[in-house]
């Protein structure tokens, strides 16, 4: 407190190219969550600049940030963050509601997205009627329904057993193969290994940034 400002991120210089699959690793407090929030346009840096495609995000107001998240970014969370009262299809429709797509189009897109993650027969199930892996697949469907350029996955396998976790990673891998940029936050080495580039962070700084030779 007082004059000692705590910097969550310090002197970060990072660029991610379209189509990259980047894994960000680091212990808690390393600043990886803050970095993710900035990349995901949930937050703006207190100083410095962040450019996302053609936008200087640092200068955008909350409405513009919301629009950007809605159109170009999809989030996949550790504990899925599905709305419990809505069924799978309605959850996937949510971002399309905010972008103002009409009823027919958004239902079509939602069903396609659910199909692509293998949940064609679960569209009317509520989250509490689905397994963890299925819920995470719904949340991936929600992330991709609006055809985003970037998917941010924050510990997507953290709440799943290893077999289901691998299934989820395979889906993300396939999405990357279709050209969607993936930024993955994890602290597990074998999960991070799916990335083509691994960034290690500590105390708000980038410790290591290298191509993943194992991939």
């Amino acid at each position: 407190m007082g004059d000692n400002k705590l910097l969550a991120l310090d002197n970060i210089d990072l660029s991610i190219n379209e189509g990259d699959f980047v894994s960000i690793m680091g212990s808690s407090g390393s600043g990886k969550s803050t970095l993710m929030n900035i990349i995901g346009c949930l937050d703006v840096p207190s100083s410095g600049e962040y450019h996302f495609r053609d936008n200087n995000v640092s200068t955008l107001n909350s409405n513009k940030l919301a629009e950007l998240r809605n159109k170009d970014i999809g989030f996949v969370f550790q504990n899925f963050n599905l709305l419990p009262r809505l069924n799978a299809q309605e959850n996937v429709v949510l971002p399309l509601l905010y972008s103002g797509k009409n009823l027919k189009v958004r239902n079509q897109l939602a069903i396609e997205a659910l199909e692509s993650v293998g949940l064609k027969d679960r569209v009317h199930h509520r989250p509490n009627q689905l397994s963890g892996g299925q819920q995470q697949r719904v949340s991936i469907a929600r992330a991709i329904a609006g055809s985003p350029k970037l998917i941010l996955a924050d510990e997507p396998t953290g709440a799943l057993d290893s077999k289901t976790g691998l299934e989820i990673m395979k889906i993300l891998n396939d999405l990357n193969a279709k050209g969607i940029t993936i930024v993955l936050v994890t602290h597990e080495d074998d999960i991070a290994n799916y990335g083509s580039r691994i960034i290690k962070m500590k105390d708000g700084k980038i410790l290591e940034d290298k191509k993943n030779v194992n991939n």
Partner: protein
Amino acid sequence: MSITDLIYLSQKSLRSNILRSILTSLGIIIGVSSVITMISIGSGARIEVEQQIERFGSNNLIVRSQSSSNRGVSMGANSVNTLTLKDMEALKEELPAIKAIAPRVSLSTQIVANGNNWLATVTGTTNDYFDLGNWKFQNGRSFEEEELNSGSRVAIIGKTVQKNLFDTDSPIDEVIRINKVPFTVIGLLDAKGGTAWADLDDTVIVPLKTAKQRLVAKKFPGDQIRSMTINVRSSDLLFKTEKDVDTVMRKLHKISANGNPDFVIRNYAQFLNARQESSRVMSILLATVAGISLIVGGIGIMNIMLVTVTERTKEIGVCMSVGAKKRDILLQFLIESLMISLIGGLIGIALGLGVIFGVSEYFKWKMSLDYMSIVLSFVFSSSIGIIFGFYPARKAANLNPIDALRYE
């Protein structure tokens, strides 16, 4: 995001908490039903007063004989007839505010006609009686000057008497026997309907002179009469004239200002005022209940919406992360509170209608349903939903997406 989508999302979350939503709207329910009841009691009273004026005429004072009480013991209203036609003439002369006076003698007796008989009140009076009492003729005519002066045996009958004595709707020129004296029917009065205490249509009216000569000669000897109806020129003069009549009558009857009078003045406006006053008091009471419960209801909505916003903080974060703008979140919570208050409004309207029909059936109290009150209730409840829902909705909209997502 369209309004239908917002409504769809809102009803989803309200339905997941039906009981809570209804309990929350309890204040609105009570408030709205009070508003509706209040308004219909008010307009019911107004209509009733208008009807009473229609029936009994407006701006009338009624002066009746009353035996002066002897050492605090009343001798009964009918025992002595202290009013006379001389009093009537004197009042007319002394008080220019008086437009007309109709004298009255009366008896209750058997009427026979057409092989039927019927007990009715027979009134002896003049033509002023019809004007002052707002009587209208369904058939026939009022008395002619000559009939009044000569004491002709002609009668005008009320609807109830006609129904009980005759099969026909036009009994003109038929003969009825009042106390065995034959009278010719010359007129039939329009029905006025009953009051709580008397059937106004159960009446036979004959010329004053005829009644005094042939029917009530013993009961009202000389120029004695039972009562008189005084019509005052305007309603502003009514209460002043009531005092003036009292003064003049005391002078005529030689009664001191603080002595017991041998007459009583009924001011019908007084009764109407009392009726209006009691419904006004009732309305104020209900308005207070309505006001308090609407405010309490509004605060209840605000309270539950604040709880809802806190409960759904994480959800709000999720919505924001997938692209909900502040405005979207604000609108969604506003619509939710609006829906709670409108549900309360609907239930309140239903309850209010139930109370209105129940009360008017059970107490025979005139209540009139004003459709404006239903519109007003919708306006009330929706504005309360919006006003009291705004603060929680704004609180939700202003959440920081990161904090909201992290909230457990």
